[in-house]
């Protein structure tokens, strides 16, 4: 499958291991990535808060570039926040031909046009809806047996449900659990799976922001999770990078590793933890998961596993 690939900003900036691990596993899933390296930041809701037309125009430019990418079936992103921010703009662009024409007028100077009908899916949605869980399961070479994984979605990819196309036929707010199981892992239920990591207010109300991160991490610890998995690099910043500060705010040790979705998939596909950049996290998954006894551990030493 050939997709117009939008990696986003943070996946190449402060969480480079996300873009890196996606690039590593794409060939193993027969996904051909046509990178949209001319596209701009989605605005993460902040540009839309400043001026909706500006966010709509920037993202219409991205959509237009994706529609130009030859032979691609759809556009794929690897960031919950990109998904939500772009879906919001796309909803406005698709709602009115008159408004769309106004936006396209601005894009015309550079020879670009956005037409309705572009499908933009997060890697998570693509795994379940385009590839299918059975196909994913068939590609697993090292099932994540005995690994207890807590899903952490990120707000932008689960709400509002109508905008994001979540319904009985597309339970996109349950896909992480389905993917964890398809990879052979065990889903850990805990209170925070669909809650907010707190990142958007880290500069405005740091205490409340870290309390959110700390509370959800703590809930996952109490529920017995070995690690969390998230499709959102911004959540990753608050849950992993800021975890030492969150520990201080909530007054308890957490030590909860947080994996990017492509990293978790990569482990099950037999890619080594270091190739997936797991050693780059602030909370090292290698120090928490017992890599010597768990089946996942064999990934670190493929020769031992045969």
């Amino acid at each position: 499958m050939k997709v117009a690939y939008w990696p986003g900003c943070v996946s190449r900036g402060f969480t480079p291991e996300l873009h890196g691990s996606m690039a590593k596993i794409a060939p193993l899933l027969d996904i051909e990535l046509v990178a949209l390296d001319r596209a701009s930041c989605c605005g993460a809701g902040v540009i839309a808060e400043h001026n909706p037309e500006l966010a709509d125009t920037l993202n219409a430019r991205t959509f237009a570039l994706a529609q130009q990418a030859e032979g691609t079936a759809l556009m794929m992103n690897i960031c919950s926040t990109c998904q939500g921010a772009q879906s919001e703009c796309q909803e406005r662009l698709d709602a009115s031909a008159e408004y769309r024409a106004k936006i396209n007028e601005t894009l015309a100077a550079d020879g670009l046009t956005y037409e309705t009908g572009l499908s933009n899916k997060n890697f998570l949605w693509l795994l379940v809806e385009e590839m299918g869980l059975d196909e994913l399961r068939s590609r697993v070479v090292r099932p994540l047996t005995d690994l207890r994984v807590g899903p952490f979605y990120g707000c932008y990819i689960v709400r509002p449900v109508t905008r994001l196309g979540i319904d009985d036929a597309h339970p996109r707010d349950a896909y992480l659990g389905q993917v964890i199981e398809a990879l052979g892992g065990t889903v850990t239920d805990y209170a925070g799976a669909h809650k907010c990591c707190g990142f958007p207010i880290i500069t405005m109300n740091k205490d409340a922001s870290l309390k959110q991160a700390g509370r959800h991490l703590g809930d996952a610890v109490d529920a017995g999770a070995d690690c969390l998995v998230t499709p959102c690099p911004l959540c990753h910043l608050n849950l992993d990078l800021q975890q030492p500060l969150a520990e201080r705010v909530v007054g308890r040790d957490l030590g909860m590793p947080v994996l990017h979705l492509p990293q978790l998939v990569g482990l099950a596909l037999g890619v080594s933890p270091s190739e997936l950049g797991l050693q780059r996290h602030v909370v090292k998954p290698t120090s928490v998961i017992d890599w010597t006894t768990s089946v996942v551990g064999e990934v670190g030493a493929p020769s031992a596993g045969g």
Partner: protein
Amino acid sequence: MAEFTLRLRRYDPESGDAAYWEEHTIDLEPHRSVLEGILQAKNRDDGSIGIRCSCRAAICGSCGVRINGRPDLACHTHLDHAKKHSSDGVIEVEPMGNMPVIKDLIVDMEAVHWKKIRRVTPWLIPKQPVPEREYVVPREAMVDVTQSMACIQCGACVSDCLSMEVDPEFIGPAALAKAYRFVGDPRDDQHFERLQDLAEDPHGIYDCTHCFQCIDACPKGVAPMSQIMRLRRLAGNDFAIEDRNNGERHEAAFVSLVKQYGLLNEAELLPRSYGGDTPLAKFKPSAAAELTSSLPAIAKALLRRKVTPAAVFKPHKLAPADRAEVKRIYETVEGRDERVEFNIYISGRDEDLT
């Protein structure tokens, strides 16, 4: 007639016992409401079940509860729908969150919700001079505020607000939507004062964590978060209010960094959110203090090569030609005499018009 099982959360503060679950079987047609189910259990099994209700038609806002973990009006939820979305075939009903429980399914709206509503001066302060006859206002402006006027004060959004969960002082979605009802009303005289008050409050408009919970919670389509974002837009852009919470600075820094690089430069965003939208921001005392307190996290990230010095000092950016395109888009859009705000609530969708 069909049989349904309700699992109700019971709590009586006078008993001294902790809250507990209790199951009741009821017989009603599937299209009847969860509220009717609760009332049947109350009439048939146990008169002491506490539930607040009045109109039974989704207008009075009295019967807000959590059904299967999500806030809604008990009178606005069909039994078959609730059963379908339960985890085990039993419809689970509990009191709303973020507010103290008085008894069973009844929460103390006064202690939280109404206090916050009063906090935002929830009445019109007439623009002076008051015209002899009526105010003449644009139709769109009135259609616009009808969205927040649709609020029935049920508290569903307050119940599941994720900011309030960690910061009970947050003014919250319902009250801030109410604030927009007056800030968006051309007849109100105190737009600037209202916005300054809400921007400067450490628990005001910039305390919203943008999680969309209130949008999905609201049974009336008020979309409180969207109203909060518009309060921010008006405060930061139109009234140029530089708040003490870094709200305006954060937004300005984000917007200008993307204009400059085409992509987000995270290493610059943090200092500029504290010190202002300039490359020198990191040397300002407010930013320096913040960066120092974050030093353990930054040091660890550098150590693990999660964040490389290159990412900090040589940020990723688009190719020059693409940066020029992005910049031109900025100049076109921001150069307009009046900001274009396409609002689906006001304009509707093409497919709705045909």
